[in-house]
C-alpha cells in the first residue's frame, strides 16, 4: 500500500494574528507553526494505521513549501511517515498547491491520496477537490472511516446532517475529518528517527497565476458586551428583537 498524505503548515491555533503594515502578509513574529491539525491528526494517522494493518507499504507526505517548512515536515515524519517530498514554493493559493502536487503525482504510483479537511489559515477545503480534478480521480470529501480490502476502499463520509457509505476502486483522493483516527503524540524514538528520514526537494513547475490574496486585515472590534440581569430574560428578548434585529 503506497499512500500519499498532503501536509500543510499552519499557525498554532492559539496564535493572535497580525499583519505587516502593507497588509499583504502575515507578521510571522512570535508565530509558532504546527502541522495543520486535520492533516496530522486524521489523514496521516489513518494512513499509518492502514499501512501497519497491511504489514507492508509506504506513507509519503508531500508539502508545498519552502525550506522554512522542513521543521514542520520533520514533525510529521516523527509521527511515523516514511518519507517526505517538498515542492519548493511558498504556497499562495489552493489552485497553485493542487497543480504542483498533481504534477508530482503524475510521475508516481500512489494507491490513494489523503488531505485534511481544511487548512486553518486559508480554510478553503478545496485543495483535495482540485487535486482530484487535475488527476481525474474521484474525490470523497470529509471521510470519517476508511478501510481498504484488496484494492477496494470503503468509506463513510459526512454529508451534512448525515453520513454516506461509499466504495471506490482504483486511485482516489479523500479529505479526512474528525473520527477517522485519533491523534498520535510522537515519542522520542519517532523524533530521533525523523531526523534521518529523507526529504526529497523538487522544484515547482510554472503555471499561470489565477488568484492572489491581498489586503489582509483584522475584523472590526466588537463593541462592549451588554450585561443583562439573569432574572430579566424578557429584557434580553426585547433587545434581541428591537436592537439586534435577531428575532
Amino acid at each position, binding site marked *: 500500500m503506497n499512500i500519499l498524505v498532503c501536509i500543510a503548515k499552519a499557525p498554532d*491555533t492559539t496564535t*493572535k494574528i497580525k499583519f505587516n503594515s502593507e497588509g499583504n502578509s*502575515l507578521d510571522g513574529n512570535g508565530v509558532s507553526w504546527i502541522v495543520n491539525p486535520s492533516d496530522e491528526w486524521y489523514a496521516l494517522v489513518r494512513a499509518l494505521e492502514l499501512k501497519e494493518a497491511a504489514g507492508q507499504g509506504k506513507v509519503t507526505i508531500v508539502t508545498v513549501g519552502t525550506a522554512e517548512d522542513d521543521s514542520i515536515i520533520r514533525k510529521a515524519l516523527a509521527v511515523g511517515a516514511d518519507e517526505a517530498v517538498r515542492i519548493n514554493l511558498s504556497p499562495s*493559493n*489552493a*489552485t497553485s498547491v493542487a497543480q504542483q502536487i498533481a504534477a508530482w503525482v503524475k510521475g508516481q504510483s500512489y494507491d490513494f491520496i489523503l488531505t485534511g479537511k481544511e487548512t*486553518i489559515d486559508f*480554510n*478553503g*477545503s*478545496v*485543495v483535495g*477537490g*482540485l487535486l*482530484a*480534478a487535475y488527476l481525474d480521480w*474521484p*474525490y*470523497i*470529501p470529509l471521510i470519517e472511516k476508511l478501510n481498504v480490502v484488496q484494492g477496494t476502499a*470503503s468509506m463513510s463520509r*459526512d*454529508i*451534512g*446532517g*448525515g453520513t454516506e*457509505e*461509499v*466504495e*471506490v476502486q*482504483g486511485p482516489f483522493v479523500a479529505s479526512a475529518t*474528525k*473520527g477517522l483516527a485519533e491523534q498520535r503524540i510522537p515519542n522520542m524514538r519517532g523524533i530521533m528517527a525523523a531526523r534521518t528520514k529523507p526529504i526529497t526537494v523538487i522544484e515547482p513547475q510554472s503555471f*499561470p*497565476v*489565477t*488568484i*492572489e490574496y*491581498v*489586503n*489582509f*486585515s483584522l*475584523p472590526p472590534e*466588537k463593541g462592549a*458586551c*451588554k*450585561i*443583562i440581569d*439573569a*432574572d430579566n*430574560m*424578557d429584557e*434580553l*428578548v426585547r*433587545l*434581541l*428583537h428591537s436592537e*439586534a434585529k*435577531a*428575532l
Partner: protein
Amino acid sequence: MNLFGCCILKLKHFKIFEMNILVYIDLQNGRPRKSSAELLTYAQKLAGEGSVTALILGQSSEDVSGLGVFGAQRILQVSTQELTHFDGLVFGHIISEAAQFTGSQVVLMSFDHSGKAVAPVVAAKLSAGLVAGATGLPQGMQFPVKAFSGKALANVNVLTEKIVVALTPNSIQAEKNGTSVAVESWTPSEIPTSKIKVLSVNKNTTDIPLPEAEKVVSGGRGLKGPENWGLIEDLARELGAATACSRPVSDIGWRPHHEHVGQTGITIRPNLYIAAGISGAIQHLAGVNSSKTIVVINTDAEAPFFKAADYGVVGDAFEVLPKLTQAIKKFKADQA
C-alpha cells in the same frame, strides 16, 4: 492628459459592466436549499446587465419555477436518474458544460458540503480563478473572504477571465426581485459515470444543516452532561434554531461530531448565536466570531467569551436557559 482620458474610459467601462452568471442550485431532499435565494440575490447584483441562469441537477420534489422570484432569469434542470447521488466530479463536469452553454463568466455555488466538492472541479475544468468562501460582493475583481479561521479578513484578487465563486451561507440577505420563470429541461452532451459506488445514505436529521442555520444554540462543558441537553434543545426548538457544541463536548461523546463548532470543527455565521456554559477559548471563537449577534450565558463573569459577545448573562445556565425559553414563548405569543 492622455493617461487621464484612459482612466475615465476604464471607469465608464466598469459602469456598464455585465457578466453572465450560472448559479448551481443544490437540492436537499428534493428541494432547493435555503442558500439558493441568497445565491440568486448575489448573482443578480453581480450580473449588472448580464444574465442569471439557475442550474438544477437531479429530480426535484416540488415546483422550482419560484427561483425566478430571487433573480433567476432562466432555470435549467437536468433531471435524470443518474444524478440521484452526488459526486463532485460528475456534477462539476455538467456544471462546466452548462457554463459554456450559457456563456457564463461566473459560476456561483454555496460554500457548503456540495459546493466545496463541485467548485474545485468547475474551476479546474474552466481554468477559472477560485474564490472559496466569499463573504460579500466584490469591489472590482476583489472578493472579500475570511482567512485564518475567521481571525482575519482578506480580499481575493481574481486574474482569470472566468471565475468560480463559492459563497459563504448567510453572507447576503435574500431579496425578491423577479418573477417565476418556466423551467427548461436541459441535456448535457455527456454525463460521466461516477466511480463512487454509494452503498447507503443515513440522514440523521431533516433539519436545517448547522452551517446554513440562521440561529444556533450551543452548549459547552458547563452543562455538565448529555442528560441536560434538553435545556439547549428546548430553547432551540422555540427559536427554530440548530444546536451546536464546543469541542470537548463532542470529544467526550455528549453530542455528535457534526455539532462541534470552532477552528477544528464547523465554521458558522448565523444571525444569532447563543452560547451556554462555553468559556470562549480562541479556537472556539474562530468558528463562531462572524455571527451577527452573540449571546453568552456563563456563571463566570471573567469568562473570555464575554469579550466577544454582544449580550451577556452572568448566571447559571440551568436557571437562565429555561427562563429565556419562557421569555421567547411569551414574545412569540405577543407577536401572534
